[in-house]
């Protein structure tokens, strides 16, 4: 599914990723933890093709394609989804309309027929049920005036509708109350499938109680410093990141 090989990349002018390697197989869930500023979001943004991250060397292979050569919108249509750490507000643009525009743009790229608004509405209603969400956010402009938790919930909902193959969740659990955390985790679990992979960036092992990861990685100083299973998350929570350097 994804093979990141010895990637060096800059965020703005600053060298952030320094020899990062990671392999994700279909159906796997990888958690990435690490200190503030270690480059976790930079890594997510690199995969999504956000222009403020510039790869310097190394390669990223995604489903047999050279991911770094694709445009951001192409990556999305190829199934790469990034739930942003800080989702953006788009005033005046209805959330439903935004999502349908996105879905149809992706379908067009893949040579599929666009969904008309009736079909789309039916699908969205089903997703709301499946993901145990409410429709209260859908009629409002994208993220405008949403609380922190609502923005995160909206990201997961978008993921549910767009059905990506590789979903990267950047601190989607931060700032959530316990109920919202469950909703987000349930959403992810509902979407888990043998051909869909997740990279979950988080600071808290709490989330990993709900979403059982196959691997836990520590990203430090621009590369994967340690890899383990879920017990690594416990250790980190107890001891912090200091012991890794020893």
């Amino acid at each position, binding site marked *: 599914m994804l093979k990141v090989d010895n990637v060096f990349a800059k965020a703005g002018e600053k060298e952030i990723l320094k020899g990062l390697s990671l392999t994700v197989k279909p159906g796997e869930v990888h958690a990435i933890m690490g200190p503030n500023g270690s480059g976790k979001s930079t890594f997510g943004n690199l995969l*999504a093709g956000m222009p403020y991250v510039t790869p310097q060397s190394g390669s990223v292979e995604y489903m047999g394609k050279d991911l770094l050569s694709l445009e951001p919108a192409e990556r*999305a249509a190829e199934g790469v989804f990034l739930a942003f750490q800080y*989702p*953006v507000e788009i*005033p005046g643009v209805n959330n439903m309309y935004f999502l349908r525009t*996105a*879905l149809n*743009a992706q379908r067009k790229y893949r040579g599929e027929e666009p969904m008309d608004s009736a079909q789309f509405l039916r699908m969205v209603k089903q997703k709301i049920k499946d993901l145990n969400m409410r429709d209260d956010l859908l009629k409002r402009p994208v993220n405008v005036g949403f609380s922190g938790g609502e923005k995160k919930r909206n990201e997961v909902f978008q993921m549910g509708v767009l059905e990506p193959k590789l979903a990267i969740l950047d601190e989607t659990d931060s700032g959530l109350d316990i109920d919202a955390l469950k909703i987000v985790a349930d959403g992810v679990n509902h979407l888990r499938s043998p051909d869909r992979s997740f990279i979950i960036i988080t600071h808290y092992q709490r989330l990993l109680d709900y979403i059982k990861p196959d691997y836990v990685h520590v990203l430090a100083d621009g590369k994967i410093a340690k890899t383990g299973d879920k017990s690594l998350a416990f250790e980190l929570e107890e001891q912090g990141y200091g012991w890794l350097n020893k």
Partner: protein
Amino acid sequence: MQVVEENKVVKDRAKQVYKEGFVTDIEAFTIPPGLDEDTIRLISSKKDEPAWLLDYRLDAFRKWQKMPTPNWAKLKIPEIDFQAISYYSSPHAANANAPKSLDEVDPKLLETYDKLGVPLHERERLAGVAVDAVFDSVSVGTTFKAELEKVGVIFSSFSEAVHDHPELIQKYLGTVVPAQDNYFAALNAAVFSDGSFVYIPKGVRCPMELSTYFRINAINTGQFERTLIVAEDGASVSYLEGCTAPMRDENQLHAAVVELIAMDDAKIKYSTVQNWYPGDEDGKGGIYNFVTKRGNCQGKNSKISWTQVETGSAITWKYPSCILRGDNSSGEFYSVALTNNHQQADTGTKMIHLGKNTKSTVISKGISVGKSQNAYRGLVRVAKKADNARNFTQCDSLLIGKSCAAHTFPYTESANMTAKLEHEATTSKISEDQLNYCLQRGITEEDAISLIVDGFCKQVFKELPMEFAVEAKALLDISLEGAIG
């Protein structure tokens, strides 16, 4: 030879963007360029006008001659040679004074309007929208006239109204925008050719949208139309104007005057989708759009609402205004002005509060792309006796690209302590973050910009009649083409 070649290339390129840029090849009667009293006498006699109207024109002309050319504030405008313009052009087929049945109209003209998406023919015309089609200096026909007459609504070309309802024209012409109001209003009063007249009698809600479609076709011709709308006590009407012109390398002048009068409890909603040819990407050609639009809320509880979507013209200079004379009257101004390439727009509104408890709302959205200049200029004035006047003004500017600019000039003058005036202004760039967010969801850059701009304009678009909101959005998309890079 070289020049011709070059023009063609320029035009071909621009044509991808401005699809209304075609020319109708039709025989026309055109007065030779030049302007003096004889020109005005000729226009008046062509239209077989009564003596009082000729006098009105001549009086305006004499005033105009004494007026200095205006000070352009933010606009850069080359000097206009008023002697090089022709002031009257009429396609032969549309004889100004013959009673106009659409069956008699030259098929070429009907075809032109078909191409513009405004079919005039019985079988194809827009449902629920009556159209007056003005081609250069004359109206070629008005649809649904008979249906409207049944409920007492008068909707006709201005020239016809001069003959059929002279008492109404004489009573109201120039009462809201006097001839000496400003340089271009005076010029218009002297040489105006055609336009629309609407009269809604007491208590009547006009049963359909009324609209006028203005088309400039002839070369080196100015268009000077005049619109007058009167809504009697308790009457209401929604009116829309649309405008296009062929692509020509020369600049052309459009100087219109619009007067609205609302009596007690009357409502007038006036919407404009302005898409005059903006010139090519190097700033060559395009329409100079100098328009005076003013509404008089004469009666108690009356309401006048201006909504405009301005995407065209090389230069736009207009400030649709409301005089809130009646107690409890209200005025609204909703505007989207988009400028691209070398376009300049200086637009805004004036809200003059004279009556008690008068209210005004101003929502202005300026979008600047390319090297364009976009200015909002607004005045809110509260007179001494206007107790409890309220104004809310919101001006938002959106910049796309690095070489464009937006300016906001809100002026307020209040002579009454009880007035409450609120003003909000924002300037933003389409943020990288918004764009990236859309891209990450699979939306292409062009669609993302259009989506974000559409969202930015939402407050204004929702004021437009449904069909036109769709058209306005499409227009913005076309005008935004090539905005990225």
